[in-house]
């Protein structure tokens, strides 16, 4: 059995991935919307998105809408796969009934 994905398992990153995974493939969320959904601060959210981007789990696209900068975050195929495996692992732990996993 595989271990839990340490990158996704961190609570805020798990929330970010859950939010992005709930959208149709190829669709992203704006930074401000993601901030509201996850309840994170700007700095905290930015740092965790960077970690996910470095792992190849999300794509970050920066653009200007009018004069306003807009950052859109989208889950990659690798990120969706990792998230699905992580959720399966969590379900497996529950079904297994209490054993601890790294």
């Amino acid at each position: 059995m595989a271990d839990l994905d340490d990158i996704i398992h961190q609570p805020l990153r798990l929330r970010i991935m859950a939010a992005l995974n709930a959208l149709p493939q190829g669709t992203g969320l704006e930074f401000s919307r993601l901030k509201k959904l996850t309840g994170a601060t700007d700095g905290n959210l930015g740092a965790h998105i960077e970690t996910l981007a470095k792992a190849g789990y999300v794509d970050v696209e920066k653009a200007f809408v009018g004069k306003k900068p807009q950052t859109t975050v989208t889950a990659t195929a690798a990120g969706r796969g990792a998230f699905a495996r992580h959720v399966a692992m969590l379900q497996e732990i529950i079904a297994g009934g209490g054993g601890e996993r790294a």
Partner: protein
Amino acid sequence: MIDSKQAAAALSDIDDIVRRVRQSQVYNLASLIMIWWGVLVFAGNIATWLWPWYAAYIWPAVNTGGVLGTVVISALLQIRARLRAVDGRVVAAYVLFYAFGYFCSDVLGDFGPRELGAFWPIYFMLFYVLAGLWFGQAFVALGLAITVLTLVGYFYVMGGTFLLWMAVVNGGGLVLGGLWMRWN
């Protein structure tokens, strides 16, 4: 290290976020439609107040514009966000909605302009409240608020001023409700 309690908590967190994302998508679509209807209803009431003899033309135009706008906004969002927001059922729902409303107001009842001015917003808001039972409390709050204010106007705001009241309460209420949904 993680045990089954922590795993259950993580899954519950995921469910909560997924629910909020879906609700935010519903609000995103509904808010644009509400603002569109709000502007039309505001204009319809003001136009009827200014030119009451044209009411028989103004309101079918408002309703047609509302339905067409709903379909266009839904289709645009469907393309942009890849949401499945509009299909034949939406159009069928509108047809049934108007058919039943017409049946009540013109066949079963013989409503005058004032009764019609109160009936359609209340009837419309009934569906907001019902939708809110599934899609979010904002719909319930908005539906109830507009219904109560419409009834206040119907019983206490006399003469042509009732149309101005309805422009603010119904049109303005929908616009403000839509903006509130977008901000939140």
